[in-house]
């Protein structure tokens, strides 16, 4: 059981945002004045903190104001089939995952391919907390305060070429760390893909934490993606490889059941799953007697993302 104080405190609550900014300005000013060596200007650089709690996380202005789900709900009810197919399996089994040391292989149509350590990957990025709606294809949803940065900022550093029309992501596939991959439930490793425009979209996040803390193993430590207008399975947990390609890449659930899980998998109340309705969803944590809520087109992010799909038949391209 989680203690009360584990749940609710965000670093941004401990230190008011104004103090962050002041401190930063102070340091920048000090650097500019030559009072401090210039290396100190990298105070914003993201690292995985040893004590498990991020510092200097700014709050993104676009966050939803809906009630945020508890840390308990977010970390004990999710799908991560590499640790078992039950919703509580990831929380029970993911302790065997070793998120450090970690490295990510970058391959395909990019100028700077190669293997990068997690530290290399995070270094230049400032972390922010973004509260997004999270809609599972199974018709339940949560509201989650993710910690991360725009994925596009990371992908740009690898200098994708004009051939890079799509990006594919791979999850770790290691029997020693993941009991679930002994069973051929999916064609391991888990893989997902986005068009380059989707991957570069400012809402698409590279995530390293939630609730101001380092991402728990069961939620995809140490690095995952979040694409808030798509069903949850379109994001990739515990990423070990990023591949730029000119062809629409293979994606795990599409490989398992193409007629049920399309490449796009945008949240869409008008296109039902063949076996259940997507018109409404159960918002977890709202109580036993709370009604389902209507599902919103693009999970409520239509204004930001509809342009990506102009002229595309969203019924055919589900």
């Amino acid at each position, binding site marked *: 059981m989680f203690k009360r104080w584990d749940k609710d405190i965000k670093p941004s609550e401990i230190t008011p945002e104004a103090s962050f900014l002041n401190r930063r300005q102070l340091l920048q000013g000090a650097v500019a004045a030559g009072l401090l060596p210039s290396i100190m200007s990298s105070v914003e650089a993201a690292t995985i903190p040893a004590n498990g709690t991020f510092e200097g996380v700014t709050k993104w202005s676009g966050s939803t104001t809906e009630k945020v*789900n508890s840390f*308990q*709900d977010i970390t*004990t*009810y999710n799908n991560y*089939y590499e640790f078992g*197919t039950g*919703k*509580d399996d990831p929380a029970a089994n993911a302790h065997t995952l070793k998120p450090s040391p970690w490295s990510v292989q970058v391959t395909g149509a990019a100028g700077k391919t190669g293997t990068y350590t997690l530290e290399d990957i995070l270094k230049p990025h400032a972390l922010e907390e973004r509260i997004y709606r999270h809609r599972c294809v*199974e018709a*339940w949803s*949560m509201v989650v305060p993710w910690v991360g940065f725009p994925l596009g900022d990371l992908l740009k550093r690898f200098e994708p070429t004009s051939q890079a029309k799509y990006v594919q992501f791979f999850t770790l596939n290691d029997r020693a760390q993941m009991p679930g991959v002994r069973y051929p*439930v*999916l064609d391991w490793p888990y893989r997902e893909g986005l068009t380059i425009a989707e991957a570069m979209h400012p809402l698409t996040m590279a995530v390293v934490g939630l609730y101001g803390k380092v991402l728990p193993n069961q939620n995809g430590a140490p690095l995952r993606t979040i694409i808030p207008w798509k069903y949850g399975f379109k994001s990739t947990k515990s990423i070990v490889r990023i591949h730029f390609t000119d062809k629409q890449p293979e994606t795990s*659930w599409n490989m*398992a*059941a193409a007629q*049920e*899980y399309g490449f796009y998998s945008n949240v869409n109340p008008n296109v039902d799953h063949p*076996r*259940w*309705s997507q*018109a*409404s969803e*159960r918002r*977890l*944590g709202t*109580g*036993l*007697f709370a*009604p*389902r*809520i*209507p599902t919103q087109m693009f999970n409520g992010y239509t204004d930001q993302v509809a342009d990506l799909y102009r002229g595309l038949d969203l019924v055919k391209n589900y």
Partner: protein
Amino acid sequence: MTPRWVVVTKVGIWAACLTPLVLLILAGAGVYGSLGANDVETILNVCGKTGLNLLMLTLSVTPIRRSTGINRLVLLRRLLGLFAFFYLVLHFLTYALLDLGLLYPLIYGATALGISPSQQLLADIAERPFITVGFLGLVLLIPLAVTSTHGFQRRLGRRWAKLHRLVYVVAVLGVVHYWWQVKSDTDVAEPALYSLLLAVLLGVRLHHRSVNAKAAVAAANAGVQPPQPREKASH
């Protein structure tokens, strides 16, 4: 007089069968345990699986009785069957009332929801094969539950046994409902296990019938009366 062991066993069955419900209520009230993040799904799953388990147990009574020769086991069958029905009704009510919110328009007002639960229910039953199949199974159980009394058993005579063979259809529908509900063809260990169990339970009966039929033919060839099955309503 009902033998003492039957009374004791029946009390045990009542206690065992009510345990899942009591645990759900304690968890829901926050007294003991927890329904988890998706409370409605937990209730739905516990009731559905308990109902299916009890249905399988009901179907196991006759093969166990035949192989052990403890004929009085049949006295427990109705109780197990009725508890199966009870949990499957709760399973349906959880889906209709809590998940879809059939009563929500009364509580929150029809316009607050943006979706009509009653229309969704009808659409689900008509269009979602796994719900159609599950609903059909539950509907077919109703006449069996109603006619489970001694009175009906006596009044219907041979037709009672025939009617109650519907339980095979219900069990098959229940397992199909479970297969079609899982997210994809990837998560099938449990439905596969139920299918296997059901196949064994039905296979045992077919084998029993063919053995009996052969015995009847052999007896007829030998010019003697075929042995009557020792019991009627043999399923």
